[in-house]
């Protein structure tokens, strides 16, 4: 049928080292090494296995939510209500604890309430076809507001010992690994495998790059987006369990402002806000960079707000720099 001889097509492009080095993940690895070396140099307390283990407490819960958020942003959605979901789920755990529920109930109710909140977001986004950024600005007020209505000026502070043990002791004694960090690592592996090695992962990339074509290709786009909202809520609920167990207290302002930190990690991890590109290893690297940089700077007592300035700069510079470099490289041959 063809008018010219058929052409031979290679299976894959010739692999070039330059391409690999220019990958976002490679840049992040360099950045992570820089942070570790820098921290080691500025503080003698940084490279201490117990200290590092303690540091993971403060970012593992956010990191768990970041995994789900990465998938959500990958398919062009966003969830600003995650921190509010944590508050509501923590409230549910607290009420259950007050009612005398046992450990299994306490462990389950957080993720369940989280998933229900996620389902509510997902319903509004996929069924009523509302933009997710707007929906979740609304639900972030609603979910945290509900927690505030129930708690008022009270706090729930009586948690059974077997729950708080999960947040305050190590799952593995040596090397000292907290529950939350191990759960994060396990989830990261699962997420990486699912996103990069399974049919579902391929579908997510297709949706992120072209939702209409994905739907025409027989991918249940709305169902997957809905499930991702549920998943994000579920992991926020799981984070609520770990956080509640760690601090043993539920107040309406719990996890306030986490949504922006989580989204920052995802974006720094190379997930495009426009959808369709990004990897789980990238997000994991970004989580470590942000967590360890914060920890290292706190070790030399840089005020938190100054740290947030530096992390803000890190975010913008790390995204702007490749663009500037690319422009300069493009201009050179012409000029």
């Amino acid at each position: 049928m063809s008018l010219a001889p058929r052409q031979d097509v290679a299976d894959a492009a010739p692999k070039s080292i330059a391409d690999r080095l220019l990958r976002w993940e490679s840049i992040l690895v360099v950045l992570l090494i820089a942070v570790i070396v820098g921290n080691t140099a500025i503080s003698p307390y940084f490279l201490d296995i117990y200290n590092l283990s303690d540091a993971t407490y403060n970012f593992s819960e956010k990191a768990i939510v970041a995994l789900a958020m990465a998938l959500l942003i990958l398919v062009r959605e966003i969830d600003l209500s995650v921190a509010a979901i944590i508050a509501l789920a923590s409230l549910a755990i607290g009420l259950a604890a007050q009612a005398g529920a046992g450990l299994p109930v306490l462990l389950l109710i957080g993720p369940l309430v989280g998933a229900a909140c996620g389902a509510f977001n997902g319903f509004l986004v996929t069924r009523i076809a509302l933009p997710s950024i707007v929906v979740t600005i609304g639900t972030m007020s609603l979910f945290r507001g509900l927690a505030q209505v129930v708690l008022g000026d009270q706090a729930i502070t009586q948690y059974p010992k077997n729950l708080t043990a999960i947040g305050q002791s190590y799952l593995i004694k040596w090397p000292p690994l907290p529950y939350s960090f191990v759960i994060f690592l396990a989830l990261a592996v699962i997420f990486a495998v699912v996103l990069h090695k399974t049919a579902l992962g391929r579908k997510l990339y297709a949706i992120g790059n072209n939702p209409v074509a994905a739907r025409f290709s027989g991918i249940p786009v709305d169902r997957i987006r809905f499930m991702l909202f549920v998943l994000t809520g579920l992991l926020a609920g799981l984070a609520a369990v770990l956080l509640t167990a760690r601090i043993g207290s539920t107040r309406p302002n719990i996890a306030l402002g986490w949504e922006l930190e989580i989204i920052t990690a995802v974006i720094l991890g190379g997930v495009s806000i426009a959808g369709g590109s990004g990897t789980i290893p990238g997000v994991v690297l970004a989580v470590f960079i942000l967590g360890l940089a914060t920890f290292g700077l706190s070790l030399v007592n840089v005020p938190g707000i100054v740290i947030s300035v530096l992390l803000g700069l890190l975010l913008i510079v790390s995204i702007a720099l490749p663009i500037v470099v690319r422009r300069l490289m493009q201009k050179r041959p012409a000029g």
Partner: protein
Amino acid sequence: MTKTTRRQTLQLFTAGAAFGLAPSLFTTAARAEGKRIAMVVKNLGNSYFDACAKGATEAATEVGGFEIIYTAPTKATAEEQIAVIDALIAQKVDGIIVSSNDADALVPVGKKAMERGIKVISFDSAIGQEGRIMHLNASSTPLIGAKQVQMIAKTLGGKGEVAILSAASTMTNQNSWIEAMKEEWKKPEYKDMPLVATVYGDDQDDKSYREMQGLVKAYPNLKGVISPTTIGIRSGAKAIIDGGLVGKVFITGLGLPSEMKDAVLKGACDSFAIWNPVDYGYSSTQIMINILNGAEAGPGSTVKMGRMGETTVGDDGQAAMGDPFTFDKSNVEEFAKIF
């Protein structure tokens, strides 16, 4: 002002440099000769705590051989404060003085610090008893509560509706003071001065301001407001002045002379109380220094506070520094220069 600016700019610069692998500038800050005491407050950018820190430095200089690390989280939440304390534990500081954002949430991290040999006490806003050695109240809680009710009763002549404008609903110390106020209120002399509402300004100026406006509208017969928070009282006073309510509604509570000078002179506030935050920071630090030097601070023991004398720790592990000090037209201008 300019001095601080330059110092802070330098700090940012160095921090930025540390980020980019030029860390040598920092080592001096990180390692010191003597023992290190960290003062962790609720959040930064609060002049009350800045004054406390001034007192802490004063105590450290007075005794000698101690270095003060003054720090706080960006947001006034327990999680952030825990992260800050974790970093202090990692640095193996010798003592930590905390004003907590959440009494219960800080217990585990306080315990962890003590397990690793770090002495922990709280001031201003307590940590739960298991998470610290002792807590120093500026004054005893019943005294602070009673004082505020007495002040408004004096202003109003014991007649008229009164409301409370508090900070966030989660703040431990505000809540316990309100409890104490209600206790005082039970006395018969206040029967013509009912408490009609308790509202929360979340320690935000705009919210406190609006809540104050709302109170006046919701309770047309409102005569007095008690605000046991420095932000609440200053915004509430401002709302009274801006709303032309001077003479109709009076505010009292806990405020800083520097912030309340205007309100007192313009008549929105008759009198208000506070302890001297410089003294407060000083006393807390003196106690910590004594503990580090081996003093006992458990329930029943007596601890020394340098120039502020001494105090006895109660069975609940709490002690009080002294009586709150009252400010009015006669002395506010003088103290406004100090804090």
